[in-house]
């Protein structure tokens, strides 16, 4: 029974519940056991008991930065060690209302700043495909848990690729919705104009089901809109008449094995009746530069609240300023300090226009690139990551090299548009992700295209469980 459950998608497990073949409580208890047995570092907290009403859908692993009332929620940072929020994020409440219970809190890069999960204040996460390698980040714990079968499905957040890149490196599906699709209320903030919550799942159908329940306008987040119209379960088997524009295949950093796997996927699109043409996003190559001004600038403001006054540990034994400075020194990790410094510098008197102002204009140019592309094609596709999962420690010595890991995923959040990563094969025994982006609020179309492609690819790769 249990091995069988392990191999089912979350949606298939929900059918077993609906058919009375397994009770919600039995299912929760099964997953609680799986999560408690995790040895990859995926979890920072696992539910200590099965709730009396375990809901009609399988439980979800939740990235640590989502506030859940009474449950440790640290955003992977020592500066929030022991913090138990007095309220629950709207996205999680929406899932709870749909019958999805919280299975555990997953490890992540501190405050979602990272592409390898090595910046967690509570230790790294190992990639279940190869324990010497990173799972990607920042939602690395969520991705590893789903890939390793210690969670039926998970949620994470994507600011510059933090759902799609770990999904790619772990061989699962990850979707960043349109900015505004899902409420940010109760998500511990990193970069407010970019952050967006989304699903990490075994397959495209599961992603659609989670997104359907996550999305919606929320009076507590004035930037939230919800997704207009319904999100039907994806059903497409063909791509007839669908136009795909591919970019970034000539990038020098693109691994040949990744490029080959992506090209094979482009051939599948044509076999399914779609058309593929190369397109240019002329300003996309400036995405990383703009992103690494905008995100740190917004982070430096958002993280000003961690000062040892209202929550978290406090350090220092002198006056008020020395308490602030020492608390922040002791509580933040290296990467967070670096980003606070970049952001504070970029926003400081005399530099604002040169950095933040310029980056916002680059953002406009990138959004215009996508608008122009969507005049000609229905979807913009590319590799999700230039490389397969890299080795733990391989990029930690060079922050800029780590930032360049986000090359293919940063332009979409800058433009606010949705994108999905689906596994499209293996290179050197490690998963490769295929990214499909569409115009704002085209989630249903993206999911349908991904569904048709997923069936054709037939990715069955599963890491050792």
């Amino acid at each position, binding site marked *: 029974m249990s091995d069988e459950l392990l191999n089912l998608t979350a949606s298939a497990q929900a059918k077993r519940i609906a058919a009375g073949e397994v009770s919600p409580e039995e299912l929760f208890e099964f997953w609680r056991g799986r999560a408690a047995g995790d040895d990859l570092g995926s979890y920072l907290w696992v539910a200590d008991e099965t709730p009396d009403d375990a809901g009609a859908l399988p439980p979800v692993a939740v990235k640590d930065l989502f506030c859940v009332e009474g449950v440790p929620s640290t955003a992977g940072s020592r500066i929030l060690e022991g913090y138990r929020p007095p309220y629950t994020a709207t996205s999680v409440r929406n899932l709870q209302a749909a019958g999805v219970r919280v299975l555990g809190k997953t490890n992540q890069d501190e405050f979602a700043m990272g592409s390898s999960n090595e910046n967690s204040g509570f230790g790294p996460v190992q990639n279940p495909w190869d324990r010497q390698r990173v799972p990607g980040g920042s939602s690395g714990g969520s991705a590893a848990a789903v890939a390793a079968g210690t969670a039926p499905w998970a949620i994470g957040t994507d600011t510059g690729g933090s759902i799609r890149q770990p999904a790619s490196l772990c061989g699962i599906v990850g979707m960043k919705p349109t900015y505004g699709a899902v409420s940010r209320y109760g998500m511990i903030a990193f970069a407010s104009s970019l952050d967006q919550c989304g699903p990490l799942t075994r397959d495209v159908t599961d992603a659609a089901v989670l997104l359907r329940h996550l999305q919606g306008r929320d009076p507590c987040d004035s930037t939230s809109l919800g997704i207009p119209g319904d999100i039907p379960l994806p059903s497409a088997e063909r791509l007839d008449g669908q136009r795909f524009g591919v970019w970034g295949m000539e990038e020098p950093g693109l691994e040949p094995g990744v490029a080959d796997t992506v090209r094979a996927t482009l051939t599948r699109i044509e076999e399914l009746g779609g058309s593929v043409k190369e397109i240019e996003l002329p300003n996309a190559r400036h995405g*990383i530069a703009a992103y690494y001004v905008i995100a740190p600038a917004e982070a430096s403001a958002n993280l000003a609240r961690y000062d*040892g006054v209202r929550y978290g540990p406090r350090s220092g034994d002198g006056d008020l300023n020395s308490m602030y400075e020492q608390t*922040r020194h002791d509580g933040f990790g290296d990467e967070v300090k670096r980003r606070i410094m970049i952001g504070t510098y970029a926003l400081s008197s005399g530099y604002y226009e040169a950095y933040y102002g310029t980056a916002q204009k680059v953002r406009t140019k990138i959004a215009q690139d996508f608008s122009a592309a969507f005049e000609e094609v229905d979807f913009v596709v590319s590799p999700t990551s230039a490389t397969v999962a890299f080795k733990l420690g391989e990029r930690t010595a060079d922050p800029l090299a780590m930032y360049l890991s986000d090359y293919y995923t940063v332009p979409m959040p*800058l433009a606010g548009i949705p994108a999905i990563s689906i596994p499209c094969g293996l290179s050197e025994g490690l998963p490769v992700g295929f990214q499909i982006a569409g115009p704002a609020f085209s989630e249903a179309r993206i999911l349908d295209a991904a569904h048709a492609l997923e069936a054709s690819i037939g990715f069955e790769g599963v890491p050792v469980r």
Partner: protein
Amino acid sequence: MIDRDQVLHVAKLARLKLTDDEVDRMAAELSKILGHVETMNELDLEGVEPTSHVVDLTNVLREDVPRSGLSRQKALEQAPDAAEGGFRVPSPGAS
């Protein structure tokens, strides 16, 4: 290039204490990162409007209906040093 003095100035603005080693490392790392960031200046951005928000929304309003917020007790529960119904902090000092 970012030098030590600039690092110390920015760290002060950010209320972030850095050790001597961290100041040196930060000067080198920030210089490299900002060097990459400055490649943005290759672009002709004359007349381009900045994007501060990607979704076209203006003046999101809601009914002005009072609702209860966190109780004082709940708000203080997580504080490292709560006293007399408030957050106790050290004296700002003479500076």
